[in-house]
């Protein structure tokens, strides 16, 4: 339970950092998506159901601060986190490459869901969003995944990790 409280606190910090400091972190106008990065990492660590709930909450935070429909990002984040969590057991979750690639793909998938729900533009529109926005942001966000994962492990370690650390 404490761990999930810590996740919530981390999410809150991520949302604040995203909304206040992300513009300063922009590279060629591309900003990382920190709340979503945390969602993917939580889904990888905690599984499908926990990931979906976390995705819903993180999406809700994003929606609250935007002018878009409330629930839109919540739904997209939850679905993607559920997919990531479902696949987690079959992945080498501790591998950095896994974290980077999963974050990149998850970002692309989440954006496609949002585009589909918000403005069905057909295949052309989706591909444009993918090329112009999703992939660059996914690459940037994915590049931060190993660092974020390491921080998350220290901040909210699982029982097994704690035991390993004590040994």
């Amino acid at each position, binding site marked *: 339970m404490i761990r999930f409280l810590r996740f919530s606190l981390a999410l*809150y910090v991520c*949302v604040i950092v995203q909304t206040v400091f992300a513009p300063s972190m922009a590279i060629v106008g591309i900003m990382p998506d920190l709340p979503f990065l945390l969602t993917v990492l939580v889904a990888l660590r905690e*599984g499908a*159901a926990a990931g*979906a*709930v976390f995705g819903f909450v993180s999406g809700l935070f994003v929606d*609250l*601060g935007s002018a878009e*429909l409330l629930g839109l990002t919540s739904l997209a984040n939850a679905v993607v986190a559920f997919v990531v969590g479902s696949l987690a057991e079959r992945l080498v979750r501790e591998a950095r490459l896994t974290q980077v690639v999963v974050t990149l793909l998850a970002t692309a998938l989440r954006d496609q869901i949002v585009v589909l729900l918000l403005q069905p533009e057909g295949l052309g529109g989706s591909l444009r969003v993918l090329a112009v926005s999703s992939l660059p942001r996914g690459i940037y966000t994915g590049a931060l995944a190993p660092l974020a994962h390491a921080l998350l492990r220290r901040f909210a370690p699982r029982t097994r990790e704690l035991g390993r650390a004590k040994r």
Partner: protein
Amino acid sequence: MSASPGSLSRRSEYLVLSLIVVLSLALMFLSADGKDAAVRALNGVALAPVQAGLSGVRALVGLRAENDSLRADLMRASLEIAALREKSLEAERLRAMLEFRDLFPLRLRAARVIARGPEPITSIVGQFLIDKGERDGVLSGMAVVRPEGIVGKVVRSSETYAVVRPLLHPGCRVSARLVRTRTVGILGWDNEVGLHLTFLPYRAEVSPGDEIVATGLGQVFPAGLPLGRIVKIENDPLHGTPRAVVEPALDFASIEEVFVVLRLPMSSAAARGPDARDPAPGARRSSAPGGAAGRAGAR
């Protein structure tokens, strides 16, 4: 919610997802109908105050960088203004020189002062180099002038540059005439007296404020061009004649552009005299021919 993946049954996980999907869709419908104000108010409570506080901190942190950037911009702008002011002054000077060239019926070659020699012990102004030489027709002995008056003469000329000896030099003497009385004398430099007019007649009518122009005798300096203004009358102890201390017409320290008189037409000098016309802007018109001008000339 479980602590580790796989601890919930697959069915439970799908149930959780279904609930979330339903909740999200409900929120979307509410939002589409504009009934999401209560939920959106959460933003004002949970996020906005912290965001506002941190934005202030970020702004403070960014203030120094912005300040530095603005200072750099200010410096750049100041330099640009200074450069533009310099260009403007240069354009003004060149315009005056163009007007002078149009008014003055001589073959002139415009030149820039490119270097100044050290100030010699015998003078307050050193010789200076101009960027025109023999290749441009500038030869030793030619007069160097400006719209305001006579500068000096070329004393050495090479292929691409020439050395000018200014009026304020012991080696430069000019036949000069008082505009008011037409009295002629020799203008020269002396380290003790400064610029002065000598060889004046015993009973010469000279008074402070009188303007002096070149006579044109000697075929070097154009007639009528200003040389200076008398500031004091003394007695020349060497010759026992009056001697007039002269304030030069030019500020020699700030000369940047000059004209070299390439060829002085016969008509513009002694033959015609300065009375024919008032060649230089600002120079007073002469009214009578020179008297004892024969002995005076440029050396």
